[in-house]
């Protein structure tokens, strides 16, 4: 695993030329294809879902320059909607995920319209407050199951044929979703649209004077980011067969900010590396607690892993 880190971290730095990125992408795909034969696949799926989440977030901050402190609302909402569609309505997994994505995209449009009215720090606080609103909604709405969340979500059969209850099959499905999202983000960043976004990030007044309607660009970036975050959330709900309040809580929003900062703002591979290494670190640090320390220390070790602090013990799941 250390090798994977080093390889991926190496290419992050050299990013920029197309050739290098192709190689990096090939290496990443190869590693992720081989990884489940070495590492526990459920853990890898978790890493993939969060990596997609971090990439979606990075699209907004790294390329749009907008720091959203409420991205958990998209992750969580899509998770709930997908879980509800799969469990209660009996949707096929692909439709359940699609449904979750649509839900988070709609939410993105509504919240985006509100939030892009302000910039910088205000934008962060507004998204944070809106996310908190969604959190309370999810806690109280009848279909979300309150503090229990939606449990035992069936993974179902993909396209009605492929049974996803097999871990390996599920893994490659998640990998496909992740790669689709990743390539979409890559495409967006390198499109004219992405270039305009960068221009807005660097100098908004100048972009306006060049005739770009920056608000529309920012809104579209926000909605795209929300949609992709929803993709991660919906997939995650199927992987763990669970949609819970942890994914909507504001600490999750904070966590993805930290992830993206750790990987490097505005890089394509950064969030992936950071996300996979951090979930690994967190899993390891949990192991420390159960082994050598007393039982009192064990519960608090989880707390001292900052990202898990407020949410994990409070809402039951980590």
């Amino acid at each position, binding site marked *: 695993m250390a090798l994977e880190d080093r390889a991926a971290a190496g290419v992050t730095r050299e990013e920029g030329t197309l050739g290098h990125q192709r190689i990096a992408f090939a290496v990443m795909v190869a590693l992720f294809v081989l990884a489940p034969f070495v590492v526990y696949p459920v853990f890898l799926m978790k890493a993939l879902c969060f990596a997609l989440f971090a990439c979606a977030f990075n699209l907004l901050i790294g390329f749009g320059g907008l720091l959203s*402190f409420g991205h958990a609302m998209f992750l969580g909402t899509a998770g709930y909607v997908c879980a509800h569609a799969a469990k209660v309505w009996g949707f096929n997994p692909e439709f359940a995920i699609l449904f979750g994505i649509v839900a988070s995209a709609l939410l993105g449009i509504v919240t985006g319209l509100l939030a892009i009215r302000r910039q910088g*720090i205000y934008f*962060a606080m507004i998204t944070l407050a809106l996310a908190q609103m969604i959190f309370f909604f999810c806690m109280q709405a009848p279909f979300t199951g309150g503090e229990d969340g939606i449990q035992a979500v069936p993974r179902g059969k993909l396209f009605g044929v492929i049974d996803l209850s097999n871990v390996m099959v599920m893994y490659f499905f998640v990998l496909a979703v992740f790669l689709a999202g990743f390539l979409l983000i890559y495409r967006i960043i390198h499109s004219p649209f992405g270039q305009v976004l960068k221009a807005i990030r660097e100098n908004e007044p100048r972009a306006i004077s060049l005739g770009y309607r920056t608000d529309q660009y920012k809104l579209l970036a926000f909605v795209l980011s929300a949609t992709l975050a929803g993709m991660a959330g919906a997939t995650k709900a199927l992987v763990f067969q669970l949609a819970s309040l942890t994914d909507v809580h504001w600490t999750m929003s904070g966590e993805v*900010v930290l992830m993206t900062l750790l990987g490097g703002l505005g890089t394509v591979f950064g969030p992936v590396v950071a996300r996979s290494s951090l979930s690994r670190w967190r899993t390891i640090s949990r192991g420390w607690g159960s082994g050598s320390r007393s039982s009192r*220390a064990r519960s608090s070790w989880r707390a001292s892993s900052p990202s898990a602090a407020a949410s994990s*013990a409070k809402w039951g799941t980590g």
Partner: protein
Amino acid sequence: MDTIFGIPTQALFGQLLIGLINGSFYALLSLGLAVIFGLLNIINFTHGAQYMMGAFCAWFLLTKLGISYWWSLVLVPVIVGLVGMLIERAMLKQLYKLDHLYGLLLTFGLALIIQGLFRHEFGSSGLPYEIPPALSGGQNLGFMFLPNYRAWVIAASIVVCFATWFVIERTKLGSYLRAATENPALVQAFGINVPRMITLTYGFGVGLAGLAGVMAAPIYQVNPLMGADLIIVVFAVVVIGGMGSIMGSIVTGFALGVIEGLTKVFYPEASNTVIFIIMAIVLMIRPAGLFGTQR
């Protein structure tokens, strides 16, 4: 029993009182945030953690050192403020030249670390703190029962809020402060030590959070997470009131506390979200906040 709009007066006034209590804490905390934001241009995400530190500090002083509530009211804000100044000197200072967002991120990280450390030490079950004997009991006002301690909290926070407003808006010291908010370089050129003023201001804002923590200790349980969710509501209060506006944060703090209390009576399902809904509406009508001016 008397009713107003079909609601028993007992319940109505009870919720109004709770609303006022919450409003007192919203006002104290958002005031500190506003003061800090005004001068430092930093959104202090650690505010909730510092409020929690205040409560823990009071608990520690009482149970380990036997220092009473009244002394805590003085000592705790000083201690928490000093810790805050240390943080400002050591870390925040490096960030003034960068985008405001970095301040937000640093204080966010600090808040997580502080909360994590306190949970490591004290667990998350919460510790009891006795109401000081002088303030136990209550008054029967005829239409409702008013516990003395709660009346004291409301009165004290109103006094503190308006004293702060007076100092900042009506005294010479306050005028330096406001001038430094407008143009730090010029104020420094007049021979005023702006960096020290910034440090003291941060200490003061954080001290207010500590004070709120002491006052909250007997009402809410002393819990490492007590500030975690509160801070988000306070952020919304600050956005509604207008960032950096002193009077705005005091008035909206109390007003939103009361509105939240009333929502609990008339439509309980929305009581948690009402503040955020108001925030969304305010943002649509007056993006700079009710009392703010567009910068």
